[in-house]
């Protein structure tokens, strides 16, 4: 067990390193460097001066030296300067990071709130009308692209009915820390959360449904029934205990989906989070921010996958590969 966890953690290190090299090289390959952006439209900029600055900032050093500097700084929490916003990337991230984490958390919780009951119903009464309705819902949610669903949600509930705000994460006129602030924040979260959650349930429902249908026929369940355990208890005590544990472990894998979803959802609802910042920065060619964001998302996925693998191996020892 311990060796598996250690090995899994060790695998993560080369993955993170490789990711950072790739991102660094991509950032270098991007057209123009940080200075071109910073001095655009600046009448005092001349080629000589820029060259001098480049030399001073080390842009002319071999790439591995620049990479070494970038990584050391990154690990220490210094992600460089945004050349568009003229401030540190870390301070730019601050608020947006918490916004995105908040949105991801509410989305994930909503996914489980929808998916677990539906998965149980579909599995327990499979082939009933309820099961068929749930399977049809699954078809729809698999087929629907996030951005289209989010747009339609925004159109119907944001514009047509005007039930919810159509952008931002909070009403800026309200003072921070008050009850109204909290309500406004929650109100702004509803649409983005539902847009991500309603069509993000398919994997969990499908897994739970199949697992319950499989487990239902296993010998230990038959034994429980034969002992006279009431049907409700057979499910809560015997079947669900087996089927729900892996679901908990899949949370890490969900991070990948949440990240790519956040890029779309945050730009559609103009929700100030990392996804929106990513799109804005790449539009303005703010490459320090872009590479920091890709690195953070990549690291989040790598760590999430690792956590899922480890939890899964604790829950289900058959998965452990040595």
């Amino acid at each position: 067990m311990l060796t598996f966890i250690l090995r899994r953690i060790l695998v993560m290190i080369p993955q993170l390193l490789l990711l950072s090299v790739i991102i660094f090289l991509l950032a270098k390959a991007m057209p123009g460097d940080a200075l071109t952006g910073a001095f655009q439209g600046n009448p005092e900029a001349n080629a000589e001066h820029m060259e001098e600055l480049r030399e001073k900032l080390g842009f002319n050093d071999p790439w591995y030296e620049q990479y070494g500097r970038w990584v050391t700084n990154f690990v220490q929490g210094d992600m460089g300067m945004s050349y568009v916003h003229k401030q540190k990337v870390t301070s730019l991230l601050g608020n947006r990071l918490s916004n995105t984490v908040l949105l991801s958390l509410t989305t994930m919780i909503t996914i489980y709130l929808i998916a677990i009951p539906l998965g149980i119903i579909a599995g327990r009464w499979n082939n009933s009308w309820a099961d068929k309705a749930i399977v049809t819902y699954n078809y729809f949610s698999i087929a629907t692209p996030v951005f289209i669903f989010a747009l339609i949600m925004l159109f119907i509930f944001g514009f047509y009915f005007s039930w919810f705000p159509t952008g931002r994460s909070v009403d800026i006129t309200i003072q921070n820390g008050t009850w109204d602030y909290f309500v406004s924040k929650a109100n702004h979260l509803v649409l983005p959360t539902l847009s991500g959650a309603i069509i993000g349930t398919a994997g969990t429902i499908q897994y739970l449904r199949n697992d319950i249908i499989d487990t239902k026929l296993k010998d230990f369940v038959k034994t429980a029934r034969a002992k006279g355990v009431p049907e409700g208890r057979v499910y809560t005590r015997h079947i669900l205990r087996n089927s729900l544990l892996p679901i908990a472990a899949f949370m890490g894998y969900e991070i990948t989906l949440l990240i790519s979803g956040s890029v779309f959802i945050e730009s559609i609802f103009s929700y100030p989070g990392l996804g929106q910042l990513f799109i804005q920065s790449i539009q303005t060619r703010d490459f320090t921010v872009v590479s920091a964001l890709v690195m953070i998302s990549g690291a989040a996925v790598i760590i999430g996958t690792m956590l899922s693998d480890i939890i899964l191996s604790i829950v289900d020892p058959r998965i452990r590969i040595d």
Partner: protein
Amino acid sequence: MKTEIPVDAEEAAVLKAQSEHVSFGKTIWREIKGDKMAMIALIILSIILLIAYITPFFIDQVQAARTNFMQIYEKPSKEFWLGTDRGGRDIFVQLVIGARNSITIGVAITLIAGFLGLMIGLISGYFGGKVDFVIMRMLDFLMVLPTLMLIIVFVVIVPKFNVWSFIGIMSILLWFGKARLIRSRALAERELDYVNASKTLGTPNWKIMLFEVFPNLSSLVIVNMTLTLAGNIGIETGLTFLGFGLPESTPSLGTLIAYAQHPDVMENKWWVWLPASLLILVVMLCINYIGQAIKRASDARQRLT
């Protein structure tokens, strides 16, 4: 769906053996015929494809792309079935051309990514051992990359960005899952006697892989490719919607949806973006229903008929 009269085990075995000889194409057709939803999906999809691929021949595309400021944002009428956009261009025409481009590019990406995944999966699974180990460790890494963000970064970096480079970028970043799937099946396949027999006869490895192992995996490949086709169309239109997909010279369905980023268009001029959104939904649903039918056809235990 017809219910069969229960037969005894022996007869069932014979029936099953007979059914094994039916070609995969026929099995798929039988499965689709037996599933009402899949049949409807097939009909709707065929109609959409016919319209998308035949109408452009009758449309003067230069005329359609020309802006006309006398008729900006007109509501749907007899002259313009779905109204006009901010350049006074007919939305219906753009919808048809966009659908054709999006579907064609989706198919191209699926085929190229499918080919890459198939080749790498086959090599990994067929040779096993060290080759497999190295490829699998690489895949472990590639699978955890933030793909969507990387596609966007590549789109921005690539000099002289055009449709071909877009297809290339998407294909290169979208085959990882497929390779892993193919590899797991190829790994099982290589232990079978027919592979050993062929090896003993001195058949070169590449021939065994392509002409003996591959045909046995073809149903798996077809199922997987149909299901990823829908996903790929979704990713392409999504990227175009964000502004990082097809270049402006090649309108996609995402181009029309991107108009919805202006709140005014979103709220008051629904005819610009809603039809394209619904069209994508319908196409994806149809492909998924057909894909599920094909999936059942490939697995004897799941067949409905």
